[in-house]
């Protein structure tokens, strides 16, 4: 054969012809199956041959991920919000209370999901029932957050006074913020809506359940 037709350099084969409108589907960068099957089933992984897509960020910590942010992209009406809700619902279904879920919901669309999962819904707005007290200890704060609260008060005072506090003034703050009456009970109590009309709104993380109107744990603003 090679005598009849001397091999030119390279391989001789017929070519197909097509325009780039069709050839763009020759896309090689498809991914393999997902990183793990641990976690709730979320749907079909189209870029991996239609296998299942399982995802739980905490399962992937350490081994595969150092960070687990997600981006959910899609055209309007294609189910992005539904995907997020399904993800949260299934996280709770699989892991229960071992997964802490906090949803920042400016559109107010997660209310029914929160109710179904038993997550308290807190609505923060001026004049509303729920308040956020900036002087509350942060969750998981072992020391009671005294130092943080002092810094916060210092910062607020500096903003209100429109100047840097003098060292002497700063030295007074620990006295005030640590010796406020009923320091422990204040951190979770709420004020009645009426008392907030004179003072600027402040918020407590706890819903207005106790309803004690005579609480005095509002941050005191100086003029």
């Amino acid at each position, binding site marked *: *054969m090679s005598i009849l037709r001397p*091999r*030119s*350099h390279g391989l001789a084969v017929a*070519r197909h*012809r097509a325009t*780039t409108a069709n*050839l763009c589907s020759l896309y090689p960068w498809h991914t393999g199956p997902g990183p793990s099957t641990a976690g709730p089933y979320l749907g079909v992984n189209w870029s991996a041959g*239609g296998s299942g897509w399982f995802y739980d960020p905490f399962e992937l910590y350490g081994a595969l991920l150092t960070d687990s942010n997600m981006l959910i992209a899609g055209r309007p009406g294609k189910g992005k919000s539904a995907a997020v809700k399904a993800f949260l619902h299934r996280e709770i279904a699989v892991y229960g209370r071992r997964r802490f879920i906090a949803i920042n919901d400016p559109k107010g669309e997660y209310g029914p999901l929160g109710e179904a999962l038993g997550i308290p819904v807190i609505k923060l707005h001026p004049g509303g029932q729920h308040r956020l007290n900036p002087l509350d200890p942060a969750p998981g704060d072992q020391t009671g957050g005294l130092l943080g609260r002092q810094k916060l008060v210092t910062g607020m005072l500096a903003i209100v006074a429109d100047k840097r506090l003098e060292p002497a003034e700063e030295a007074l703050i620990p006295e005030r913020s640590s010796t406020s009456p009923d320091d422990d009970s204040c951190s979770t109590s709420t004020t009645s809506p009426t008392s907030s009309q004179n003072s600027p709104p402040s918020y407590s993380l706890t819903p207005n359940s106790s309803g004690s109107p005579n609480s005095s744990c509002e941050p005191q603003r100086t003029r």
Partner: protein
Amino acid sequence: MVVAEDFAHVQIDGSIHRSYWIEAWPRLDVPAAWMDLVLLGIHGTRTINIVFEPVAPSAAARAIDEAAIALETAEATKAKHGFRIRAADRRKRDEVEQREHELVAGHGDLAYAGFFHVTATDLDSLDDLAADAEQTAAHAGVLLRPLDGRHGAAWAASLPLGRTLAQRKVAP
């Protein structure tokens, strides 16, 4: 590097390669992710490479003209002598028109040749892998034809060197 070329495979050092030319691509409409099966559905060492050769816009337009004229002439002849126009004829006509639309819209015309290579360390597993590849590719609408007797050159064509295919005058 040691190369030992056989009729049905080529051995290069410790690995044995068998190469296929992609004779037919999917003819039906396929979803965008149709290559999943070919790329990921075969379990073993495999290489897919596609060589593209750009066609000059003038040559692409000329090819469209010639194809359209040939088809129209054939249709006229058939009509004149009382032969019916078959579905295949109509489809050819549609495809030429479709391609012309795409070229006018700014897409480029390309000549391309696709290759599929499987690699194993012994002949038995190469045969298994090759059978798996042929079947799976057929499921995806890709027809593989083994490049028997040319596996050495075919393996070289899998290298990203750019000049591994014999120069060929692209049909105008």
